[in-house]
């Protein structure tokens, strides 16, 4: 029977294979995208306040659905994990059920947070509705103005978050590539190149994409700024 002694070169992928798959990995169209906007459509026909209300309602419905799913599944998972932990004899099975208990409790807490607490859009809408109207201006214009400013502020915040993610993923990718180039362990090198490539794709995707908040902000109409001068029945300037 022929004996085959494995040499170092036989244990490694040929260089051509590594160059091949890394070139494909880095030349692909960007596919790691920011969550697609499902709400930023046909917004030009709605006022800023109407957009705010619709967004608040959509988020509230989604949070209610997900929140109860987390609570129910967390309770069920806890009911399975606790007895299974004490019945299991395998070490890793006990670890899985122990982590499962922790995840279950966390899920119940997070689900309660989604169900019981209002989202930011709903809270701002309530503030607008409860604020006393100024007698010198139409109340609907005030609401549109404030809603527009809130949506703009959200878009700016989302843009800043996106910038931070681009920087973070870029630095992570750079570190992984440098570590991969300086290690002598073949498996570790390939793994580091892989993670670095994925982070590079993520950085490019966040850099060239835009979030749903930004798309909403770009789509809504800017409310007209009305200035009333003189007596209550005087003239009105619109800009």
């Amino acid at each position, binding site marked *: *029977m*022929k*004996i*085959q*002694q*494995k040499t170092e070169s*036989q*244990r490694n*992928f040929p260089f051509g*294979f590594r160059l091949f*798959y890394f070139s*494909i*990995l880095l030349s*692909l*169209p960007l*596919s*790691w*995208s920011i*969550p*697609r906007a499902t709400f930023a459509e046909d917004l030009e026909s709605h006022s800023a306040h109407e957009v705010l209300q619709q967004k608040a309602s959509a988020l509230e419905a989604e949070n209610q659905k*997900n929140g109860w*799913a*987390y*609570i*129910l*599944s*967390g309770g*069920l*998972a806890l009911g*399975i*994990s606790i007895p*299974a932990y004490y*019945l*299991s*004899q*395998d070490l*890793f*099975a006990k*670890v*899985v*059920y122990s*982590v*499962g208990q922790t*995840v*279950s409790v*966390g*899920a119940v807490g*997070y*689900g309660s947070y989604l169900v019981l607490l209002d989202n930011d859009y709903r809270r701002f809408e309530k503030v607008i509705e409860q604020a006393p109207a100024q007698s010198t201006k139409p109340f609907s214009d005030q609401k549109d103005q404030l809603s527009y400013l809130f949506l703009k502020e959200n878009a700016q915040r989302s843009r800043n978050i996106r910038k931070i993610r681009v920087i973070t993923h870029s630095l992570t990718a750079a570190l992984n590539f440098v570590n991969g180039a300086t290690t002598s362990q073949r*498996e570790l090198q*390939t*793994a580091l190149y*892989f*993670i670095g490539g*994925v982070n590079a*794709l*993520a950085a490019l*995707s966040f850099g060239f994409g835009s979030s749903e908040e930004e798309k909403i902000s770009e789509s809504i109409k800017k409310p007209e700024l009305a200035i009333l001068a003189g007596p209550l029945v005087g003239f009105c300037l619109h800009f």
Partner: protein
Amino acid sequence: MKRLRDLILFFAFIGPLSVFAVPTEFAFERVPSRFETLELTAGSRALGETCYSFGTMPDGTVCNSAFLPEVTQGSLMGRVFLGNGYAALTAANQMVYQPISKEFLQSLFEHQNVTSLEAHVGLVFTGPRFSAAFSPYRVQYLSEVHNPNFPVVAVHAAVERSFSFSSGFTLEELSGQLSDFSVGTRLRLLERTYVHGTFSLFQALTDNPRDLLPVQIQKGIFVDPTVAWAKKDLKWSPRVSLGVKNLGHLFPQTSLYPERPDFGFGFGLEPPLEVGQLKLGLDVVDLIHGPEGGGALSRFRVGSTYHLGIMDMMLGWNKSAVSAGVQFGIQVVQVGIVYEFLRSELNENTTENRIATEFSVRL
């Protein structure tokens, strides 16, 4: 009381039972059917290794590349899959990578009648229309002690490294009438190092250990194209997929790992539920060659999964095993456990239980 407790644990799918060696000189001449698996993950095992009939697997990855367009958000996941019998991990690595001594071979006769191990470490990136996976370490190990009067050990140990790249897209851009159709393909690069053989205690004492278990190395490159149809507008969201596997080249070719091209198809349904999400899948694989030693029924694989919040509960059936599993996951962390009832190939009247666990971190 002990017998009653064992029965309770048996029906609760917990607690491995040992398989008693058959007093015969029979030794396996092919890879144990339990190791004929492409995806070594908790989700795949718990679902009876169905692949063609499911879009997104419970862990968020995609097995059938034609369903990659259904992914909406990218994610990077690192995972460790570990079957029981992990104490044999050192033995498996030494069998393949290190010099082995006569004392080491003799120690195999002192182990349990059947010792098996499966483990897998991998990184997976899944995004819309694109997926890549790197597996630096995947090990399968089995040793069986036969014929107590004249002990013979049958050993199989294989360590694999692989990289796969998948892409899929819908045909909507070609024609609006083809919007329900999608195609995908997966490119796999594989390097396998293994030993496979049998020897008696007398041979272990006298012969050169590496002559008894020579190391074999295989390298391969394969393409697995698939085409799928899915109609989410219908009430039960049916999906059908047809695929080809192992189109490519493996060198050197061996009878132990033939890796022959073959066809398979899958049919899946998603019954509408008020609470949670239920998926059912039926795969028919190896349509041309068929699993070795199996009949028509051995080509079928059935799987089902129910998703609610943080939990996925799974059931699966194939010719080798009945399996059940559960996965818990929230935000970054995900864990899973699978219980399998395997049919013994040496004695079909016996079964052995196996537990596998998986730990994943998602970014």
